[in-house]
């Protein structure tokens, strides 16, 4: 039916363009919200969710209680949902879409499925059409039919789907998110929205988590805080520690910085009703003897904690350390990488070649800056006059050249040979300049760049 025809029938209809990506996002946010019932939530096609509630139902007063709670909450959020609950994903799928009762007791799959149409078996369109063309129109008819001719004519999918629905073959669902090793949560009778309340709750949850972590002799390296808003929105905040930790105060400090950074995007709305703290990654952490004056934190630990807080607040690139790389190209020889406490920082034998050279600048530009050189000794002498950032400089003294060839073994863009010069201007500022290419080699004259400043 076209829009014009539809409008002729119902003039008041509203036309909205379909937006599959937005639908997908909505489904994913619903999946996030369903996380409150079980960590095993999988997406099913474009309009369905699978929840594996093994071992979770008793927390909500049994299967019936869970289903009622879920349906009520979805209803209040404004969604019209249909749900089915069964021992197998196939039977639950059929019950949700075609069944009369939503909870299917174990062993009753056959009575549920028998009267249903073939669509309840999750078959491909052409297979279903083929089955219907030979008169097999209900699931019951397929159950009754001999299996061997069915498989020969329509493939294995038919019997596989039937067996999966009946529970004769195990069907795993693939959850969207990995299940965190540890999580603690707190359901709140009165929703909270203030930062201080959330932080206090985080510390309380971290205390619960600590007991569990101590039992496992582990510490958390990555922590996630999930905040379930009253209206069904789920906010996630995660922090990373560069060394395993389980001290509630430290966990709270990290989240304090992270929450402070996200204060604007973390819209509490009407408040959060469920707060969950998950340890996403854990690592072994032996208990250590604490000193009387709490001097147990060694020097490195303190720096690591500080770095973690900076990273939690300002992002991973806010604090970085140096990593030396075996390379002749100056900008490649020492790179800044995000801080990590356990990374081996001792300069290796290989990288020490970059360190032995005396005349490297103390500061290096991210990208070498283009310099206009009006006078230079040809073919391979230093520049005598140059312009950098629209100011003219006269080079009084120069040392060089130091020739650095491109690293051809890396492949890709080879670049040109660089001749480096240390240059001092009239005021005594020392620059590190290089000429890319050689005079007289190509048609174009070589270009000059300023790469660093020396002390």
């Amino acid at each position, binding site marked *: 039916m076209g829009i014009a025809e539809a409008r002729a029938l119902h003039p008041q209809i509203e036309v909205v363009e379909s937006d599959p990506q937005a639908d997908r996002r909505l489904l994913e946010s619903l999946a996030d919200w369903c996380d409150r019932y079980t960590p095993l939530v999988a997406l099913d096609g474009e309009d369905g969710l699978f929840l594996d509630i093994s071992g979770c139902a008793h927390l909500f007063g049994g299967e019936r209680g869970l289903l009622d709670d879920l349906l009520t909450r979805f209803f209040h959020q404004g969604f019209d949902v249909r749900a089915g609950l069964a021992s197998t994903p196939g039977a639950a799928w059929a019950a949700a879409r075609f069944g009369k009762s939503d909870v299917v007791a174990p062993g009753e799959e056959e009575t549920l499925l028998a009267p249903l149409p073939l669509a309840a078996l999750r078959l491909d369109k052409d297979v279903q059409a083929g089955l219907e063309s030979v008169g097999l129109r209900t699931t019951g008819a397929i159950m009754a039919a001999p299996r061997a001719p069915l498989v020969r004519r329509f493939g294995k999918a038919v019997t596989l789907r039937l067996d999966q629905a009946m529970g004769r073959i195990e069907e795993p669902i693939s959850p969207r998110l990995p299940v965190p090793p540890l999580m603690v949560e707190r359901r709140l009778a009165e929703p909270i929205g203030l930062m201080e309340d959330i932080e206090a709750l985080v510390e309380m949850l971290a205390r619960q988590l600590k007991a569990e972590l101590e039992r496992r002799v582990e510490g958390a390296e990555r922590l996630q805080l999930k905040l379930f808003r009253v209206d069904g929105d789920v906010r996630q905040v995660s922090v990373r520690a560069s060394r395993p930790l389980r001290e509630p105060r430290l966990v709270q400090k990290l989240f304090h910085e992270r929450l402070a950074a996200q204060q604007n995007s973390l819209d509490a709305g009407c408040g959060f009703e469920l707060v969950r703290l998950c340890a996403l990654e854990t690592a072994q952490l032996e208990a250590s003897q604490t000193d*009387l*004056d*709490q*001097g147990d934190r060694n*020097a*490195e630990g*303190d*720096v690591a904690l*500080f*770095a973690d*807080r*900076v990273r939690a*607040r*300002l992002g991973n*690139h*806010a*604090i*970085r*350390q*140096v990593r*030396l790389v075996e390379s002749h190209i*100056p900008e490649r*020889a*020492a790179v*800044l990488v995000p*801080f990590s406490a356990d990374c081996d*920082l*001792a*300069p290796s034998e290989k990288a020490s070649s*970059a*360190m032995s*050279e*005396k*005349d*490297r*600048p*103390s*500061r*290096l*530009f*991210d990208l070498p800056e283009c310099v206009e050189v009006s006078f230079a000794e040809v073919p391979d002498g230093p520049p005598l006059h140059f312009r950098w*950032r629209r*100011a003219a400089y006269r080079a*009084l*003294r*120069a*040392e060089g050249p130091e020739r650095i060839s491109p690293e051809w073994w890396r492949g890709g863009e080879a670049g040109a040979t660089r001749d480096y010069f*240390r240059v*001092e201007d*009239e*005021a*005594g*500022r*020392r620059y590190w300049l290089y000429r890319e290419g050689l005079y007289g080699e190509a048609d174009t004259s070589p270009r000059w760049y300023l790469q*660093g*400043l*020396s*002390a």
Partner: protein
Amino acid sequence: MAQSARVRDVVCTLRHQIAKIEGRLAETLQKRPGGLPSGPAAAAHLVRTGIESFDRALGGGFPPAGLMELYGTASRDAGAVSGFALALVRLLSNRVDAPLLWIGNSEIFREAGRPYAPGLAAVFGLRPDGLLVAEAERLADVLWIAEEAARVDALRAILLEIRGSPHALDLTVTRRLHRRALLSGFPLLLLREAGEAQPTAAPLRLMVAPAPAAPRLTLAGPLPGSIGPPAFRVTVSKSRTAIPASFTLEWVDDVFRERHEHVATDPVPLVSASSGRPAAAAAIGKGMAVERLGARPAAGFQPAGEQYPTHRRAGRKG
């Protein structure tokens, strides 16, 4: 933090009592973290540079901890200013294993380049694993990092590099930084590239400019045309003694050495007239930051028209 400081204080008192009972010297124990060195005790802690006149101008030497300000007049002098700061760290701090934290906003790192570990290792003996670089786009975040870092007593030193003269870096903030750095016991060097002198809580302010380096020394004497160890033109702009002075220092083999200008072998004017640097005479005698600010308004500051006397306003053109 506050609680741990209190606990430490109690433990320290108890240790002192035990030491007294046992007849040991309480001074061998760690010093009380709450007490700041002051008076003659502080003078004993001062680190001497070994240059008599420079030490005298500084009032005995450099304080080993707390806030110090280093000014450079233009971004292109950042190499010299940061070089002098690293030399100072080398001189003042003997915590070689602790990392040095270099904080800057993205603007200054774009403008003057990021720290380059191989160069720092060669000249200032700073190991690459002893350098942490912190960076943030906004000045408020940079100051937050600095204030938090000043409490981490496991650092060797902090270099806080800021371009220009922002209002956010006022007396209150610098006082807080100074106090925290004193308690943590390491130097916090405030590097202000292309900045104007502002009132801050730092007890010491030096203007740093590059100076032509002496030629390299070889067995056959100085090598003409070569560029030797880094040299700095340092003007003491604010210090305890308020003795105005200006020095040309060289950083040779991990010590400062003074170079007298008439010895300079290069027939070059030491400071270019065009660099926008205030003449040495202008800096001398203006020890107080407040006076400097009044004496020479910041570059961006234009008085409103009403402030000019009428006869001047009439005569002003362009």
